[in-house]
């Protein structure tokens, strides 16, 4: 049986969070398909990186180590993946839906003429019967994702082309160590056989990897605002509430498009997925692509002037009214009740 491959992104010498999540998912899928799980790491100074990878149940780690391969650049990484996949013929290949995976994935899929589904929210194994050809396909990867602005959920399959490729955002899949002592093998690739000089036409001149200041995923409480906040000034109220509650501030895409908050605060399908203990949605109507990023929150409070707002349908508490009036009250009564 052909293997499952996970492309491991490297961040500051370590395997990125999203890649760890994908290896966890990859292991589950591999068990179901009774095949091996392999990982590919491309970068520089990768000695020992396999120790971070095997515990997820990876059977073979392929390493492409060369100083020209870090930081990430599209062309050489594409060449290595394409050639390795031509040799190994994986049935499934997973990548993070990060700025790396979303840059690399389509190029690789085009070179291999294989199908790629971006930003999947769920990956499941299943069969498919093609009525036109009267042909049954077994054990396909169902790539499930919202589309059309989140108004539909589509299940995508690649019946005939391999590998079946999918990208998944960080935080969508759970990360879980299978066995800290899991033993796989390491295969070091001879990089010169995989890349050409032409692959290095793009030069990285400058790079400041500013650490993301915002860490919504780690926050037990997320106070998020939408377009309904009305202004950047009103949005400041959310920071006040988040500060007293010990939370982080998030935003819907509409709020970010309106300039109320910076991009890294975006919660939703095309932003960050959060599962806090408490999610307070302020002036957020609750389109599905936003909900995709927060509906697994343990508790949800929705504050909205519109009693019919879609967000209310998934909320545990619905407060109908003006956020500008309600948030200061929440701060006031929080302080009162904790004293």
């Amino acid at each position, binding site marked *: 049986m052909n293997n499952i491959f996970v492309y491991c992104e490297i961040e500051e010498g370590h395997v990125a969070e999203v890649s760890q999540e994908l290896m966890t998912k990859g292991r589950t899928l591999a068990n179901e398909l009774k095949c091996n799980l392999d990982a590919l790491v491309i970068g520089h100074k990768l000695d020992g990186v396999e120790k971070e990878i095997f515990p997820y149940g990876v059977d073979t780690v392929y390493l492409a180590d060369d100083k020209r391969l870090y930081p990430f650049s599209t062309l050489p990484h594409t060449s290595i993946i394409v050639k390795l996949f031509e040799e190994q013929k994986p049935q499934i290949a997973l990548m993070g839906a990060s700025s790396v995976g979303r840059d690399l994935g*389509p190029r690789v899929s085009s070179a291999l003429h294989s199908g790629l589904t971006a930003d999947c929210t769920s990956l499941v194994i299943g069969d498919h019967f093609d009525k036109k050809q009267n042909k049954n396909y077994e054990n396909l990867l169902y790539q499930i994702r919202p589309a059309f602005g989140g108004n*539909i959920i589509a299940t995508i399959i690649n019946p005939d082309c391999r590998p079946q490729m999918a990208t998944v955002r960080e935080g969508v899949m759970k990360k879980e160590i299978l066995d800290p002592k899991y033993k796989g093998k390491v295969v070091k690739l001879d990089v010169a056989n995989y890349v050409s000089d032409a692959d290095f036409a793009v*030069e990285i001149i400058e790079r400041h990897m500013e650490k993301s200041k915002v860490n919504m995923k780690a926050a037990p409480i997320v106070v998020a605002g939408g377009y309904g906040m009305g202004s950047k000034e009103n949005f400041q109220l959310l920071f006040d509430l988040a500060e007293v509650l010990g939370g982080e501030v998030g935003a819907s895409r509409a709020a970010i498009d309106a300039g109320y908050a910076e991009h890294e605060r975006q919660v939703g399908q095309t932003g960050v997925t959060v599962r806090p203990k408490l999610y307070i949605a302020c002036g957020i109507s609750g389109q599905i692509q936003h909900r995709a990023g927060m509906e697994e929150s343990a508790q949800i409070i929705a504050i909205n002037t519109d009693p019919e707002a879609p967000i209310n349908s998934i909320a545990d508490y619905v407060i109908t009214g003006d956020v500008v009036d309600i948030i200061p009250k929440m701060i006031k*009564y929080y302080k009162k009740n904790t004293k």
Partner: protein
Amino acid sequence: MKALKIIVLAKQVPDTRNVGKDAMKADGTINRAALPAIFNPEDLNALEQALRVKDQFPGSTVTILTMGPGRAAEIIREGMFRGADGGILLTDRAFAGSDTLATSYAISRALKKVKDYDLIIAGRQAIDGDTAQVGPQVAEKLGLPQITYVEEVQKIEKGKIFLKRRLERGVEVVSCPLPMVMTVNGSAADCRARNAKMIMKYKHAKTVTELQNSNEDYLHLYNDRPYLNIPEWTISDIEVDHAELGLSGSPTKVKTVENVVLQAKEAKIISSADTDIDDLMHELIENHTIG
């Protein structure tokens, strides 16, 4: 630096970000046909970067290439009103059902026919699919380098373009030899507004099909002012392998589509009165949600 030939890849998309009540069906799902068709937002960011390069290198041209149904010519005109020199509509029933790979194949074939270009600029992704795949796939099919997530063109010199990219945790500046493909992020500069003179100049610009379907009184205009003719290409105008187009050329198939229905769930309804908020905060502290 000589004048540059710039192609902007753009798409007309349903405005999925503004789903009003009009676009909702009785069962709570969306009526896709009822959404207004707009110029894909990030393609406008792409157009702005193209126009800035044109401003900097006089004599440069900006051509919008779009694939879609006949009415997608609207966005070519929209682009011309904002400063593009013209456009090409790639339209054929054979394209129906194309996934990103079949789409990028068709677009790359059209670009092979265009032949002469220095820069191909696309928006990062379209709001109907949010896949961000067509740009990189077109680059691969043309054998050109790609730079994604571009926020700004910094300079072009000695056959190289210098670009600032916006990534999750910071920025990156890269140089890339021309010709190349870039995709532009929504965080880039907004597109300039329509220009009144350009509207006057181009308002009658039409594709052949549009012209045939209109009761145009000034047909001679289209001979006198060739820039009013928007080229319309079908598969007979480009060199293609038919098997690579449409559904048959698409490795990915849609198995099922589930319309999202916003389901009701029992929720506690709270008023904005002080006592209600007081009780709520008390309850949340009591059950250890906060505090």
